[in-house]
């Protein structure tokens, strides 16, 4: 087994959050933050065909969002993408924090960074719903892993 996919870019979810807050704090202008968010979305890897199916489509998002969790060792890796660029950007920041973490870390990590990088107040209510749907799906998957392990 190769280890690279098991190693997240940052050691902990907290570090990933701080890194994102730093990155977004660099921009004064909201158009620039959007542009950066969109760039992050564009760099998301392609969704494997196996997951581009209706059963992996999230409800509660106005645009189309596919999200699938995959167990890799003791961690959960998430594949996700949207047909909308800004939503893909939101997916990218969420995955930076939550993908390739242990189920315990995922469940315990509160998404405080969302407010701090301004996504919370600056994205429209429908997008916020999409964001909470994505978070709910990620945490739900981690919770299921924990329950399976305990059960």
């Amino acid at each position, binding site marked *: 087994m190769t280890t690279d996919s098991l190693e997240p870019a940052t050691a902990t979810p907290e570090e990933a959050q701080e890194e994102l807050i730093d990155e977004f704090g660099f921009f004064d202008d909201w158009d620039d933050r959007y542009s950066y968010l969109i760039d992050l979305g564009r760099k998301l890897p392609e969704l494997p065909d196996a997951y581009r199916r209706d059963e992996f489509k999230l409800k509660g998002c106005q*645009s*189309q969002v596919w999200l699938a969790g995959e167990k890799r060792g003791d961690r959960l890796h998430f594949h996700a993408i949207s047909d*909308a660029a800004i939503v893909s950007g939101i997916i990218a920041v969420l995955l930076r924090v939550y993908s390739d973490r242990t189920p315990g870390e995922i469940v315990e990590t509160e998404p405080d960074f969302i407010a701090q990088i301004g996504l919370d107040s600056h994205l429209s209510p429908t997008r916020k719903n999409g964001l909470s749907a994505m978070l709910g799906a990620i945490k739900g998957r981690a919770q299921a892993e924990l329950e399976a392990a305990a059960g």
Partner: protein
Amino acid sequence: MAIEEMDQDTAYDVDAYRADFPILSTQVNGRPLVYLDSAASAQKPRQVIDRVSQVYQTGYANVHRGLHHLSERATEDYEGAREIIRRYINAAATSEIIYTRGASESINLVAAAWGRKNLKPGDEIIITYLEHHSNIVPWQFLRDELGVVLKAVPVQPDGSLDMEAFTALLTDRTRMVAVAHVSNVLGTILPVQDIIRMSHAVGAKVLLDGCQAIQHMAVDVQALDVDFYAFSGHKLYGPSGIGVLYGKEALLDAMPPYQGGGDMISSVSIEKSEWADLPHKFEAGTPAIAQAIGLGAAIEYVESIGIDLIAEHERDLLNYATQKLASVEGLTIMGTAPGKVSVVSFVMDCAHPHDIATIVDRHGVAVRAGHHCAQPLMDHFDVGSAARASFGLYNTRAEVDALTTSLEKVREIFG
């Protein structure tokens, strides 16, 4: 002809009308609001807001019940609004004007009360591919419950209805033809006079969903000879929570009640109840009193400007917007049927409609993005979603310019 040379209508004082709508002077994201989502819901003039407020402050009580002063006053105003609505659509009598929560409830009422009474397995209902979900789902309920056949008329690439296909679908088994008067996505005005004439020729009834027509053009239900006409108050600059079902009296009379409750009965015993006369037979429970009165005020407001002048103003905006948007690289307008109303749906090659709506919102511009509650139509055109700018009586050419500028920004970001 260059845009600058086009005749500007001088009789139409759009600035004065704008001043009637308090919300239009608000700011969004630090920019003046450019509200281009009136097809979803229109903003309200002070004349409506004040009228509703006045009801609660000086003239509110339950209607049709008390013998006291306030109840009589509220009843008078509530029934007065019904007369205003009757006059606006030229119905023969106020007994043909049923208050509902909105067009959705109006259509559900017809499907449930007329449909269950009059339809048998194998009977056919015709809708179109451009219907709002509100004029699809109630008929699907009937199909699943009664075994009736639901057929849909396809749409041409320019957004016109395929009348040849309609002719072919119409048979002597057709009992109901339920179609939009105007498409909420494409702006197409359907050839409703032909549809009604042809449907009546095979013995079918016609219901028109007038949600996107009633605020843009004069509607005369008697001249149309339409059997049922449904619309919502909130798209006609009136309050939300109030809508109208017009029905020919003979049809409404023969229909059983839709919901049971107070106000819809003439007598009740444990063994048996007798129904109230029209229109109250279909109005169970305490109705949306202030909203109905507010809708009356909205219609009077529209009449004070003149629906034909509004239509002319909106036509100018539509032509201007069509020219301006065509200049945005990579933008395609959905729906170019001749004589369409001031609704412009579009897609861009560089950006998803949700991305478009988010970026233009940063510039204070409100447009709708999504499937517009018309998923069969979006599938028909093979797009998942579209952005939509829709114009009302208060919009201006400057607002079209603001939209175009913000769309150029979308191109810069995503292009």
